[in-house]
């Protein structure tokens, strides 16, 4: 059988060897790598050394009895693949106690990671080091070193694995270096999981695995897969799974470059189906080109305005106010210099994520309305009435480089200055009609996934989000929601936490606020006491579980890529029903904050040291890769002075998230994000207050590095 397969593939290889490199991509389109049954890029059961592009986020689902596996995969870098899986294990009950989990099958959560060691070259294969189930219960735990090399329309993978990937066993080659690698690999089944088991990695027997992807010509990139299964099914999972044959076969059909269907026959006795979807959300326009151009003043009208404005400052202010507003840029203050050569304009807006884009559009309008004696525009972008910086635009340069779209020649670092915005320094401060009430409605979904009561509980709600602007820097914000449909009735798991129940009573909050609930209702006051120093006070019903009062202070030199700050909150637990009452638990929580943005890699590192909601003390760290379009992929962890036993399942607080700018999906510009965040398990240790308008976020768009990153948008 195996020799026949060899002849078959050799024949196909010769048959296709004449394909020209330039036509290859058309004959074999949709070449994005396929996903294995274990939810990461690979063949069927085996991993490969292939990666998707950085910024890619993917979802896969696979059925390979006794496992149903759903995965979320993210590529924060081109060299790193991270994935999180839920596995439904059909041949095992969630627990032996019927009253606890009924007939529900076992659910397992796991985290996989893969690092690229070597990029494929004409001679060398791509090489990757990977970890399966690295921080879970260890039911599928394995490590591997794998290489992949493409020869024409064949992609050949060969690797060595440890743990569950040691089916075709050989002596552990690391044992030649150190005897300890030859020893028994310690089992972790039945532990609370959640921690990396470094002392088990690369221990015990090793095994060889490999396979071939053969791309079929003129068939939309479809491929046949054959592999020698590296998984040792006698070790994997809880109950032994029979394996009749270790040669697996599969057929993958890419419906599009992003969506693949898979059919496989594995272990010589099991049909396997699956699908995957990937998207690269890090591009500025991943789906559509934007069709939201600036609205210049018609030339004949602009010429007329210039004449009228020649000797009249009042007209200049008024025409700037009106025409900037037509571009959804709202003038807050303006001042014309005594020599009438420069104008300083402070404005706010909520349409564009990119501040340079607003700078460009504001410059366009000022250029159209100002007499020729004005040579400089000084622009101040306000957010929550905080003006962190000003940008000086040389009018002649702005005009000169516009047609050739050369924004980098318009501005240098010295044109961006740290400032403290004070409206009294300006001659023109149009009176806004305050207070103003803004609101919107939208869908909301609350979920509880993977508990013993059932795999998925959802609550579809209609959410109201409102903002009452009392003063420019004083707002009352509110979010409330009304339940429409939910399946929460069967959800009953109570908290077994020995710590104060600051988060683990989530089920009570979800169930008792099923109808109408006030998610938050708070007053926010922002200040800028001096240059580079920002403060905020917030009071009210801060979030679903806590209310109280808190303050944050942030020192952030806007031309630097770091910030330090502090926050303190005096909070009390809210009642479960989502109304106004409080429960007895009250605490003071606070942190010293340090944030650092590394501009070359686009990584934001943030840390919080201090006291958490359950009165535990420790540190919270958060890493996020921020892409040029604002999309971010990140992960966080919190370690405090509570022991693993006190913390319970999961050992310590951790999770991941990704956010995508909403404007990625549309032809218009807009602010705001959509996304997904997940904490594998909700426990009380390391819990923090949800600080919705944190000062780093409020000031980030105005930072020097953010300007630099988006400067190409000046003429957009």
């Amino acid at each position: 059988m195996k020799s026949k397969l060899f002849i078959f593939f050799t024949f196909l290889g010769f048959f296709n060897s004449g394909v020209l490199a330039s036509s290859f991509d058309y004959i074999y389109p949709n070449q994005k790598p396929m996903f294995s049954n274990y939810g990461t890029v690979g063949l069927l059961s085996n991993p490969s050394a292939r990666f998707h592009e950085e910024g890619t986020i993917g979802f896969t689902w696979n059925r390979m009895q006794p496992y149903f596996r759903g995965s979320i995969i993210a590529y924060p870098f081109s060299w790193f693949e991270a994935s999180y899986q839920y596995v439904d294990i059909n041949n095992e009950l969630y627990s032996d106690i019927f009253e606890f989990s009924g007939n529900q099958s076992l659910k397992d959560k796991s985290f996989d990671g893969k690092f690229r060691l070597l990029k494929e070259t004409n001679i060398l294969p791509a090489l990757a080091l990977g970890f399966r189930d690295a921080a879970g219960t260890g039911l599928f735990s394995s490590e591997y070193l794998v290489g992949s090399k493409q020869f024409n329309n064949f992609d050949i993978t060969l690797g060595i694995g440890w743990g569950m990937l040691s089916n075709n066993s050989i002596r552990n080659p690391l044992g030649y270096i150190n005897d300890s690698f030859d020893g028994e690999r310690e089992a972790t089944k039945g532990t609370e999981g959640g921690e990396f088991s470094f002392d088990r990695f690369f221990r015990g027997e090793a095994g060889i695995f490999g396979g071939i992807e053969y791309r079929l010509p003129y068939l939309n990139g479809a491929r046949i897969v054959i592999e020698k299964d590296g998984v040792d099914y006698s070790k994997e999972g809880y109950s032994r799974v029979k394996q009749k044959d270790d040669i697996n076969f599969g057929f993958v059909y890419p419906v599009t470059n992003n969506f693949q269907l898979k059919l496989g026959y594995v272990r010589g006795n099991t049909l396997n189906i699956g699908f995957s979807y990937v998207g690269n959300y890090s591009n500025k326009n991943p789906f559509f080109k934007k069709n939201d151009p600036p609205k210049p003043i018609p030339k004949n009208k602009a010429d007329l305005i210039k004449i009228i404005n020649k000797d009249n400052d009042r007209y200049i202010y008024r025409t700037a106010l009106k025409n900037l507003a037509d571009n959804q840029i709202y003038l807050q203050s303006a001042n014309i210099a005594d020599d009438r050569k420069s104008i300083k304009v402070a404005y706010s807006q909520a349409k564009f994520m990119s501040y340079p884009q607003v700078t460009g559009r504001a410059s366009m309008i000022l250029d159209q309305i100002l007499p020729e004696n004005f040579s400089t525009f000084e622009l101040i972008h306000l957010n929550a009435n905080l003006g962190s910086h000003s940008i000086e635009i040389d009018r002649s340069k702005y005009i000169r480089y516009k047609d050739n779209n050369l924004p980098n020649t318009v501005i240098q670092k010295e044109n961006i200055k740290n400032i403290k915005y004070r409206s009294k320094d300006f001659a023109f401060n149009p009176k806004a009609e305050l207070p103003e009430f803004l609101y919107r409605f939208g869908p909301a979904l609350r979920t509880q996934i993977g508990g013993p009561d059932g795999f998925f509980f959802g609550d579809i709600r209609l959410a109201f989000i409102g903002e009452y602007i009392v003063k420019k820097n004083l707002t009352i914000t509110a979010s409330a929601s009304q339940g429409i449909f939910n399946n929460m009735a069967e959800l009953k798991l109570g908290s077994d936490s020995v710590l104060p129940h600051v988060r683990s009573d989530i089920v009570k909050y979800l169930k008792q606020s099923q109808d109408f609930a006030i998610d938050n209702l708070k007053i926010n006051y922002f200040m800028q006491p001096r240059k580079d120093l920002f403060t905020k006070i917030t009071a009210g019903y801060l979030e679903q579980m806590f209310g109280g009062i808190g303050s944050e202070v942030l020192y952030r030199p806007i031309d630097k890529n770091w910030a330090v700050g502090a926050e303190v909150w005096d909070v009390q637990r809210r009642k479960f029903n989502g109304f106004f009452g409080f429960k007895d638990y009250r605490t003071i929580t606070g942190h010293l904050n340090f944030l650092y943005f590394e501009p070359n890699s686009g990584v934001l590192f943030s840390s919080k040291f201090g006291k958490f909601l359950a009165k535990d003390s420790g540190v919270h760290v958060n890493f996020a890769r921020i892409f040029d379009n604002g999309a971010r992929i990140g992960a966080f962890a919190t370690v405090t002075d509570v022991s693993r036993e006190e913390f319970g399942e999961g050992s310590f607080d951790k999770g991941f998230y990704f956010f995508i700018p909403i404007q990625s999906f549309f032809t218009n510009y807009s602010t705001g994000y959509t996304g997904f965040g997940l904490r594998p398990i909700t426990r009380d240790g390391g819990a923090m207050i949800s600080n919705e308008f944190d000062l780093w976020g409020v000031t980030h768009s105005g930072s020097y590095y953010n300007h630099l990153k988006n400067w190409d948008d000046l003429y957009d």
Partner: protein
Amino acid sequence: MTKVNMLPAVFLISSCNSFVLTDPAIYINDYFFGFESDNVSAQAYSDSEYSFANIKIGRGPAANVVLAYVNDGIYEWRSNDGITIYTNNGVIVKTLGLEKDINYGIVKSINFSSTEAFTSTGSLYGPDLIKTPITHNFLNMDEVKLIERLGEEIITNVLMHEIYIPSIKWSAKNYFYYDLNNNLVRSEQKIHPNLPKIRIDFFIK
């Protein structure tokens, strides 16, 4: 963007609790049933000083391009965001600035009633397929079709341009609609394997 790509995008959005539902709903409606910019009104036509074309790529919103030059029978259409499309008697023979560009390398003037099948040497870009033979065939479909133009329905004759690229075994059938005065009013062309169909309504002045 294909339908398949759209669905996960919508799914992601609807799971967010701070998003206005009406925005995606309007876009999805327009995506499937057409955007306002897809149709040129009689008023817009009469207001325009120059010849222009209304171009719709796939299901995206249509945009107008203006006729910038006519050179040896090649019409050069330009958009305000840097896209240039060259047509030879309505047949797109070269593009610049599209997500995937082409240059069919057609040098002779095309006439649907008299041009016989021929082979040109052209290129596709994104990915690049340089100087590959492309065969062209022109057929009169002997059928009429009603199309909506400037707010009214008009009768058109349908002609077809068949393209075949043997090196990648790719072919397309493109349709051209002529009014009863033998003016080209619309074309529907698939010019690149990785681009959706392009519809062009021509408004020559």
